[in-house]
């Protein structure tokens, strides 16, 4: 049963990616589609930030991960390199949990 789920997810996820690359080129000229595809990652990445930092099952919670994200936000505003942003978040969350 687990194998069926693993294989369906694996095949399905690849098919979804390949579909995007297989859409005929003429479909891409639509200006609105171009704009949607350019802006969509912004909306989805912002949502992923919220889900990762505040989501806890089906409720919102402020916890060590939120503290880590806040610290990461400061690092981003100070234009810290990517790996520093990530390490600051992990260290902050670990510190909050240790307190």
């Amino acid at each position, binding site marked *: 049963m687990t194998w069926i789920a693993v294989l369906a997810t694996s095949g*399905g996820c690849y098919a979804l990616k390949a579909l995007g690359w297989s859409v005929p080129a003429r479909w891409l000229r639509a200006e609105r589609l171009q704009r949607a595809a350019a802006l*969509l990652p912004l909306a989805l990445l912002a949502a992923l930030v919220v889900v990762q930092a505040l989501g806890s099952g089906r409720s919102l919670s402020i916890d060590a991960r939120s503290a880590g994200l806040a610290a*990461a936000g400061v690092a981003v505003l100070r234009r810290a390199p990517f790996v520093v942003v990530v390490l600051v978040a992990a260290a902050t969350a670990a510190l909050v949990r240790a307190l």
Partner: protein
Amino acid sequence: MPPAPSPTRSRVLRDAVAIGLAVGAYGLSFGAAAVTAGLSTLQACVLSLVAFTGASQFALVGVLGAGGSAAAGVAGSLLLGSRNTLYGVRLSSLLGLHGPKRYLAAQVTIDETTAMGTAAPPEVRGVAFWATAVSVYGFWNLSTLLGALGAGAVDTSALGLDAAVGAAFLALLAPQIHNRVGLRVALGGALLAAAAIPLTPAGLPVLIAGLAVLPAVLRR
């Protein structure tokens, strides 16, 4: 003559390695979470090798681990993975690949490679996409294996690794916000996701957040 190494190119390569390392931390927790949820090490590795899209993989093991059905797990996972279709549309217009290369590029079309490929200046776009792909694919699969083997040995929560994931998405998002429209779309997506978390099953809030692009797209 091979192109001379430029400061932009080396910065892109450095960022690609950094993203791979950050994803590696996430991969450790995926491998551990998968085995904790009852998957075998091989099943965890097949997901990382073939599905290769973190949020979908987490969604599947999250549902299975919580006792959800295989169908619910797969559905949530595919809903989350559908954003990669739109990334593919975007990347295919930017990178303009042909033949079998398209299907290789499709396999590595995920949040991180799209963020790097779309954010890079045009002259290093291809380098940014492929270097990130190699780095993330390598670190993600290696760390999945290590995480699955070491499940239980490492306390990912005590190390704060779960917080690293949200921070990584934030660090990918920030440089892509170039103007007010981008900022509005990002804030709209964040608010829609926060509103949807209590109301919808895992996986849907991220998709619902996609609606935040509508005002900017429909405006004339």
